[in-house]
Each structure stands twice: as C-alpha cells, then as structure tokens.
C-alpha cells in the first residue's frame, strides 16, 4: 500500500497552501466494537511539516481529531518544486513520513 499520507501543496508564488489527509483510525479508546470490547485508543499525536530545515507547522492532536484526519494551512518562503516533508507519530509509536513536491 502506498503512504498513509496524502498531500497537496500548491504555491501561488508567494504563499504555499498545504492540505493533508492521513489514513489513520484515530480511535478514542472510548468506543466498543461489535463484540462489546473496548477499542484501545490509537491516534496520531504529532504531525510535523518541514520545509528545508524549518518546521513550518506542527500539529499536536488528541483523539478528538476525526478519523482519517485532515488539516490545511499556508506558509511563505517556499517555491514551486521545493520539497515539503510531512511526518506523524502516534500514541503507539507508529510513524510515517512522506516528502512531496510543492506544485
């Protein structure tokens, strides 16, 4: 399977708008499955966006962020063709990273 991270980073010359969708259950630990057993909490805690060696945006998430989480922000100082690196780590220590080109 491909990366868990989908990213759209589009520059208009001055601003780069970044939208990300991540495949993750974001289980709160408060929900029971069909058999009545509690589904343990499993959620992304930190999501980091790096342009070069600069962290341009850092998200700290709790279990109240929706399943397959989405976030959008914009930043200055990047050009078309630059790399943006996105990485997350969850409460179980799982992690994923992707590097995308700014369009």
């Amino acid at each position, binding site marked *: 399977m*491909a990366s868990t991270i*989908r990213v*759209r980073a589009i520059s208009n010359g001055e601003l780069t708008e970044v*939208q*990300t*969708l991540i495949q993750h259950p974001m289980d709160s630990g408060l929900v029971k499955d069909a058999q009545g057993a509690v589904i343990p909490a499993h959620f992304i805690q930190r999501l980091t966006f790096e342009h070069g060696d600069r962290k341009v945006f850092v998200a700290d998430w709790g279990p109240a962020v929706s399943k*397959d989480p989405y976030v*959008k922000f914009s930043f200055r100082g990047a050009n078309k063709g630059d790399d943006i690196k996105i990485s997350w780590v969850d409460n179980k220590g799982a992690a994923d990273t992707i590097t995308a080109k700014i369009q």
Partner: protein
Amino acid sequence: MRARGVIQLALLAFLALAALMVAVPPVRAVDAQGPAADAKAFRDYFVSKFPKVKLEDFVNGPYSMNEDMRRQWEEKEQFPPYEFALETGREMFSKPFGNGKTYADCFPNGGIGIRQNYPYFDAKEGKVVTLELALNRCREVNGEAPYSYLKDEMASLTAYMAFTSRGKPFDIKIPDDPRALAAYENGKRYFYTRRGQLNFSCAGCHVQAPGERLRAEILAPALGILNALPIYRSEWSGMGTTSRRFITCNSQTRAVPLEPQSDEYRNLEYYLSYMSNGLPISGPGARP
C-alpha cells in the same frame, strides 16, 4: 388475556385501515404508462417540489437542499474522505489477476467511463446485472474469489469506476423484452412497497420527505440517489456500496434486509437508476 386483546386490536386496526385504503379505487389502470413516462413524472415531481434545486444538483443528495450542510460538504470535498478508497480502487483495477488478466478485460472500453450504463438488462440471463455483480463475476471467471458486496474492496473498485464516469449522465436502457419490463416493474414495486415494523417504503422517505429530518439525518431525494454511490458515510466511518445502502435502509425500517444482489435489489437498482437517466454520475460521494 389483556395482551392478546391488544394484539388483536392492533391487527384489527391495521386491517381496518388497510381495508379503507383498498376501498379507495386506484384511478388508473395498471401499467398505464411505460418506464419513459414514469421517469418523466418522477423527475417532474422533484423539480416542482424543489424549484430552487437545479436538476443536476439532485445527485448531491441532502446537500442540494440544506445550505449549512452544503458548506460542510464543500469543505470536505477539498480533500474528500473517499480519497483513499479511490486510490486503492485505481491500483486494484490495474493489478492483474493470477491468470494475468485484469478487470479491464471484462468490461467494454476497458471499464473506463462506463459506470453510467449499469445496471443493464442481460438478455442471455434474463436478469438485471449491476456493476457490483459484474465485478464479482469478472473475478470468478478469472479464478478469483468474489468480494463482499458491502464495502472495502468492492467500494474501492466501484469508487474508481464511478470516478472515471463523473459527469456522464445515467444511460439505463430497458430493451424491448417483456422480462426487462418485468424487472423494471418489480423494482418499482419494491421501491413503493412498505415494509418493516415501521411500515416505511423507500418512497415514503425519499419521495415524500427528502430534505426533512428523520431522527438526525436529512433524507436524500430518490432522484439521483444512486449517482453518488459508492459513498463515504460519516455514520459508517467508511465506504459503502449501493448494496450496503439498500441494506441499511431496510434495517432502519426494521425489515430484515435481503441478500446483497438478490433479484429484488437488482431490480430496485435498475428502476432507480432508470429514474435518474440524464443526471450525471457524481460518485464516489461523501454523505453524513
């Protein structure tokens, strides 16, 4: 016994009411109008009930009739929740089976841009064939196990196929074959038949009350309801196919759902899709 009495009373009341309704004679003859006239009447009904909704917008279901919900949907469409299913479907579609063939070998035009022609009436089998059914048959012909009809792989595959047909109008044909007409009529009857302990028909909600709230949900109009399938439903926290949609509807009326791709469901899909002829495919969709 008092309880018995109440049941009898309830059944009596039921009988009496039914008798009353039967006593009002239907004004028209059975099958006085054919499918084409049905479809026109169906469309006209929705257009006049919702004069502000553009015809092609009915495929957006409850979002065509509620501004606050529409904004939430438009925000979600910026990066829609069905994105993963769509991408998985694209990969699955081109991945060869064990025998080297692919889904493309089973469908006209390699399966691309054809979703609007399904379901169709298959003269050889004498029955309606839906896209989901055709996909599983394609798998079986090529020595692969069929998928569950409700979600996951089937939802991903149909999501991709719908995506390649986006904007193309539904083009369902009813050939000049009494069996095809019968399938259509049976689908229509299923659509209007009340069932389940709550005594609802499909039409009771999706013809008479679209745009209104049933419990917490805003009901979708029947016109264009299948154009957006498969859908990512927040309520399901995931994707669901047309089969899943029918099954959920049945359960909500407290009716025991039929098997996916039973004759009834196939006919229902045939009827409903025909009613939406001319309206664009918009799937995969996102719904509350």
